[in-house]
C-alpha cells in the first residue's frame, strides 16, 4: 500500500495505530509529487522542507500525547489552492502580478487547518485569479488531467482536483465562485464540496467575486469532505458575511438512512449535455432510487440565462476587487495582468460605468432574485436537487483558448446554485466510453450541507466508482 493513496480517515487510523509516522506519510506524498508533476503540473509551489518539518512536529506532538480528537488533522498532508494566503509561503493566485508575494498572514481557512494539525505540501495551480474553468489562464502553465494528460482538469481549482486524483496529497482545499470546486472535481473524478455562501470564511482568499466566493474541500471520499467542513465552518470576525448560524456536526449525520428523502430532477439540466454524461447520471439516479429515495420531476429556471447573470456579476465584482493590485504595497504593477483578467476587468468596469449600470449590473441582480425565488419554490417540493455537474466530460487541452465565454459555458450547470448561494457536492458516478470521469451534483437549500453529504455518502457506499484510479 502506497501511503499517499490513503484517505484522511485511513491515514488517521494508520497514524493512531502507529503503523507509520506523519513524516513517512508526508514523504510518500512528496515522492509521488516528484514522480508525477512533470506530467500533470498540479502545483505552483512545492514546499518540501517545510512539509517535512511540520510532519516531524506533528509526530513529536503525537508522541507527547496530543490526540487526533483534539487535533483532527494532526500530521495529515494537504495541498492548498494558491489563492489562499499562507504565512511565509508564496501565494500567487497563478498570476505574475503576485509572482513574489509572501503573505504576512494566514487565510482563516489555512489557520483553522493548521490549528487542526494539517501539513502543507504546497500550493496548487488555478486559472489566474481563479478566472476560468481549465487552468489554461494560469501564468504557471496548464495542469493536465491525471485520467488523460491530453485533457484539461477543469478549473479554477484544477490543480487541487488533479492533486487528489493523482494521489499527490491526502486531501485538498479549493475555492468556488461558480463551479471552481465542483467542475474540476467532476472532470478529475473526485469529491468536491462547495459550502453555502457564508458558511466558510473568505478572509485571506484572493478575492474574485465577493458575493459568491466559497472555500471548500476536494477529497477522495465524502466522509473526508464532512470531516474538513467540521473544521472550516463557522463565523469569522474577519469576514462579516460569515453566518452566525450554529454549525452542524457533519460527520454525525452522514450515515443516516436516506429513505423517503425527496430528490428533484429538472429536464432543464439535462437539455444540453452529452450522451455519455446523460447515461452515467441516469444510472446513478436509478441506484439512488433503489435506496428508497423519492425521485420527483421538477421545473427549474433554464441554466443558460444564469450564464449571462454570472458573467455580469462576476466581471463587475472582479473589476472592483482587482483595482487594489497597483504594485505599491505588494506584487507587481497592472502591466502584469494577462488577457483573461484584462478582459474581465474591462467588461466589469464597463457594466458598472455611468449609463450602463441599470442595463447590465442592476438587471443581472434582478434576474438573480428570479433565480433565488425559483430555487426556493423548488425546495418546497423537494429536499435536494440532483443534476449532472458538467455538460461534458473533460475537454482536450486548448479548448478554452481565445474563447472569452468558455468558462461560463463549462459552468452552466453549477452557476445557478452558486448565484443563489446554495451548497453543492460533486460525486463521481463512473467513466465515459473513453475513460474520463463523470459525476453528478447534489444541490440543497442554504445550510443543508449535512443532508447533501448524507445522500452523497450513502450513494458512495453502494457503488465502487470512488475506488477507480487513473493510470499515470
Amino acid at each position, binding site marked *: 500500500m502506497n501511503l499517499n493513496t490513503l484517505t484522511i480517515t485511513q491515514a488517521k487510523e494508520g497514524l493512531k495505530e502507529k503503523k507509520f509516522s506523519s513524516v513517512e506519510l508526508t514523504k510518500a506524498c512528496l515522492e509521488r509529487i516528484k514522480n508525477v508533476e512533470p506530467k500533470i503540473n498540479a502545483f505552483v509551489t512545492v514546499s518540501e522542507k517545510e512539509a517535512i518539518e511540520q510532519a516531524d512536529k506533528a509526530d513529536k506532538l503525537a508522541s507527547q500525547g496530543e490526540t487526533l480528537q483534539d487535533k483532527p488533522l494532526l500530521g495529515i498532508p494537504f495541498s492548498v489552492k494558491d489563492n489562499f494566503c499562507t504565512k511565509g509561503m508564496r501565494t500567487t493566485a497563478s498570476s505574475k502580478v503576485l509572482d513574489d508575494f509572501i503573505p504576512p498572514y494566514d487565510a482563516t481557512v489555512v489557520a483553522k487547518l493548521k490549528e487542526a494539525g494539517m501539513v502543507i505540501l504546497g500550493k496548487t495551480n488555478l486559472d489566474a485569479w481563479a478566472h476560468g474553468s481549465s487552468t489554461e489562464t494560469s501564468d504557471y502553465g496548464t495542469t493536465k488531467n491525471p485520467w488523460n494528460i491530453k485533457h484539461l482538469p477543469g478549473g479554477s481549482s484544477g490543480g487541487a482536483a488533479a492533486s487528489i486524483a493523482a494521489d499527490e496529497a491526502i486531501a485538498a482545499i479549493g475555492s468556488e465562485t461558480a463551479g471552481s470546486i465542483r467542475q474540476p472535481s467532476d472532470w478529475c473524478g473526485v469529491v468536491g464540496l462547495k459550502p453555502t455562501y457564508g458558511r466558510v470564511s473568505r478572509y485571506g482568499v484572493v478575492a474574485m467575486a465577493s458575493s459568491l466566493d466559497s472555500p471548500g474541500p476536494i477529497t477522495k471520499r465524502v466522509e473526508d469532505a464532512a470531516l474538513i467542513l467540521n473544521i472550516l465552518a463557522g463565523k469569522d470576525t474577519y469576514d462579516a458575511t460569515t453566518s452566525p448560524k450554529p454549525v452542524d456536526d457533519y460527520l454525525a449525520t452522514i450515515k443516516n438512512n436516506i429513505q423517503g428523502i425527496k430528490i428533484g430532477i429538472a429536464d432543464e439540466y439535462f437539455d444540453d449535455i452529452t450522451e455519455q454524461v446523460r447515461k452515467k447520471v441516469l444510472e446513478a439516479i436509478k441506484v439512488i432510487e433503489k435506496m428508497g429515495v423519492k425521485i420527483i420531476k421538477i421545473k427549474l429556471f433554464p441554466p443558460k440565462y444564469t450564464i*449571462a447573470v454570472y458573467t455580469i456579476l462576476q466581471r463587475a465584482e472582479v473589476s472592483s476587487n482587482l483595482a487594489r493590485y497597483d504594485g505599491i504595497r505588494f506584487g507587481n504593477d497592472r502591466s502584469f495582468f494577462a488577457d483573461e483578467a484584462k478582459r474581465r476587468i474591462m467588461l466589469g468596469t464597463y457594466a458598472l460605468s455611468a449609463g450602463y449600470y441599470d442595463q447590465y449590473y442592476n*438587471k443581472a441582480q434582478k*434576474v438573480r432574485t428570479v433565480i433565488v425565488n425559483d430555487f426556493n419554490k423548488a425546495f418546497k417540493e423537494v429536499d435536494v436537487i440532483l443534476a449532472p455537474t458538467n455538460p461534458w466530460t473533460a475537454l482536450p487541452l486548448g479548448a478554452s483558448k481565445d474563447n472569452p465565454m468558455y468558462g461560463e459555458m463549462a459552468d452552466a450547470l453549477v452557476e445557478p446554485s452558486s448565484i443563489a448561494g446554495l451548497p453543492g457536492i460533486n460525486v463521481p458516478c463512473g467513466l465515459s466510453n473513453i475513460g474520463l470521469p463523470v459525476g453528478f451534483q447534489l444541490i440543497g437549500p442554504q445550510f443543508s450541507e449535512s443532508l447533501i453529504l448524507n445522500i452523497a455518502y450513502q450513494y458512495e457506499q453502494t457503488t465502487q466508482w470512488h475506488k477507480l484510479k487513473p493510470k499515470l
Partner: protein
Amino acid sequence: MKINVFHVAKLANLPLTEEEKKKFEKQLAETLDYVAQLEEIDTKGVEPTSQVTGLENVTREDVAKPSFSQEEALSNTKSKHNGFFKVKAILEV
C-alpha cells in the same frame, strides 16, 4: 454593441497596446451580445439581490488588537522610504 476599449481601460488603469485594443474590442462585443439574453427575462417589479446571506449591519466590538508590525506591513513592497511606502507623485507641482 461596441465598447470604447481605450476609455474603459483608462477607467480601470490598464495599459493596452493597439493590438490588444483590437482583440479585446471584438471579444468584449461577443460577450455583450451573449449577455443581451438577459433582456428576454421579465423583471418588472423584481427587487435586485446584491447578497444572499440576509445579514445586515454586521459590526465587531471596537477594541484594539495586535496587528501587523510596520516591518511586516512593508515586507512585500518594492519601494519604501524611512518605514513608509514610497509612491510616485500624483500631483504636478
